[in-house]
């Protein structure tokens, strides 16, 4: 049994079907990327997994537990933390208050101090800015805060939605280094990205999404070498 399993998942907005018959799996301890063009359904996929958008059909499970019957706010306690697109920090709360909200689950509250130490160890910048309003920080710092907030619940699986969007190239590189680091620390990672080459360099496997369907999947090196990816995304 895989950690996260999707079978024939469909979902959409109103009459528009954004995801069609998606089947995929994420194993414990691996990092997996979902790549694809704008509008391929990548963000929708993460929203369905975290319960923000209900699936219209199919099966979804985390460690064998059915996710479709859970309301969105119960998904976090199965061990899935979602860092949403555009980060969605609480702008007029301090960095540390944002991190506290990441530990809102009663089971996470007791371990708040040690996890705070872990997150501040990962991101010393956040510790420097702990009393600053999150909305006043740079994009890179906000991304760190959003990832830190997700780590505060002590998740098993982290969903990252386009963490590199809008960041300077140097900061983008730091974000990808971080993906590698948290995977090495034992977190399972599912990341959605447009920066195809860079993300494929740090993950184990990837799925290529195209117009709401899985077009291709495999080890990242294989995908990088494939004609489909080279032609469409790398312009080779």
């Amino acid at each position, binding site marked *: 049994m895989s950690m996260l399993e999707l079978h024939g998942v469909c979902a959409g907005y109103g009459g528009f079907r954004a995801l069609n018959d998606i089947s995929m799996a994420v194993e414990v301890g691996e990092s997996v990327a979902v790549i694809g063009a704008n509008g391929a359904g990548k963000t929708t996929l993460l929203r369905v997994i975290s*319960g923000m958008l209900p699936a219209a059909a199919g099966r979804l499970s985390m460690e064998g537990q059915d996710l479709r019957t859970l309301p969105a706010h119960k998904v976090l306690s199965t061990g899935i933390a979602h860092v949403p697109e555009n980060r969605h920090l609480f702008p007029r709360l301090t960095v540390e208050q944002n991190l506290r909200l990441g530990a809102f689950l009663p089971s996470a509250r007791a371990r708040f101090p040690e996890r705070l130490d872990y997150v501040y160890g990962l991101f010393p910048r956040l510790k420097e800015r702990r009393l600053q309003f999150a909305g006043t920080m740079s994009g890179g710092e906000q991304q760190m805060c959003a990832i830190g907030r997700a780590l505060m619940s002590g998740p098993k699986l982290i969903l990252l939605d386009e963490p590199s969007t809008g960041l300077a190239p140097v900061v983008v590189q730091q974000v990808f280094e971080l993906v590698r680091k948290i995977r090495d620390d034992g977190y399972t990672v599912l990341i959605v990205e447009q920066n195809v080459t860079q993300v494929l360099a740090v993950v184990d496997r990837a799925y290529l999404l195209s117009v709401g369907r899985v077009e291709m999947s495999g080890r990242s090196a294989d995908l990088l070498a494939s004609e489909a990816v080279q032609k469409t995304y790398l312009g080779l």
Partner: protein
Amino acid sequence: MTCSLDIFFLEAVLNGILLAGLLALLSLGLNLVFGVVDVVWICYAELVMIGMYAIFFAYSTLDLPLPLAMLIGITFTALLGVALHMIVIRPLLDAAPINQLLATGGVLFLLQAAATLAFGIEFRNIGVHLGSASLGDMFFSWGRIITFSVALATMLGLRYFLRHSYLGLAILALSQDRHVMPLMGADSRRLYAATSALGGGLAGLGAALMVLQFDIYPQIGLQFGPLIFMVCVLGGLGNMLGGFVAALVIAQFITIGSSCFATEWGYAIAFLFFILMMFIRPQGLLGARS
């Protein structure tokens, strides 16, 4: 009475500060609810009125000790706040603001009419007289002093609760980004209900302090409602610190105006100032420009 810098003037200023405590406390719950739920409880002063009746009957009819009667009143209005949210506000959360205003406005008249039918129009009083404290030649009623102290303690307590407890932080967070709350493992519906209970409970606390100073009658909300809204809007709707500052300003206009001219003039000057400020700073003293 002439308006000069004498002891009467000082007494008026100090009484203004004490009156500000009550106005600030009354505006606190309304600001909290608006800041988080983004809906104005037009019927807020009517919740206070119901709370006053609850305390009156628990104390005078059931013969319960006054603190217990006050606790019952606070609990009752807290539950009323939750009921108001679940029955009236929740179905209208995504409706146009004017519809939300009209709906809570309807509740205002409903509560007023229900109170008139149930309790009649006579004035009631719990008959507790706390007397006055004297400072030199000045006199200050204990009711006002207690009210001011409780209001100040409540504001500081609420501030601490919102910044340092998990539930409080979640309520603040909800006011800034309600869509992301499920990703924190928080149920927005329960947080809204908790906020409404808190807002209703604060109306009950206001009621507990008001029964010490005022008679109880079904239309008392009409006397205080406009003042509370003026304080909230002047401070910047949803801004609790702004509400406190605005309460201080408005109360000074009322008490100094009353002392220099006549009570009615105090209110007229306060409202005139309010209207002027709406031209100069429509977002309120401490409100963010939107």
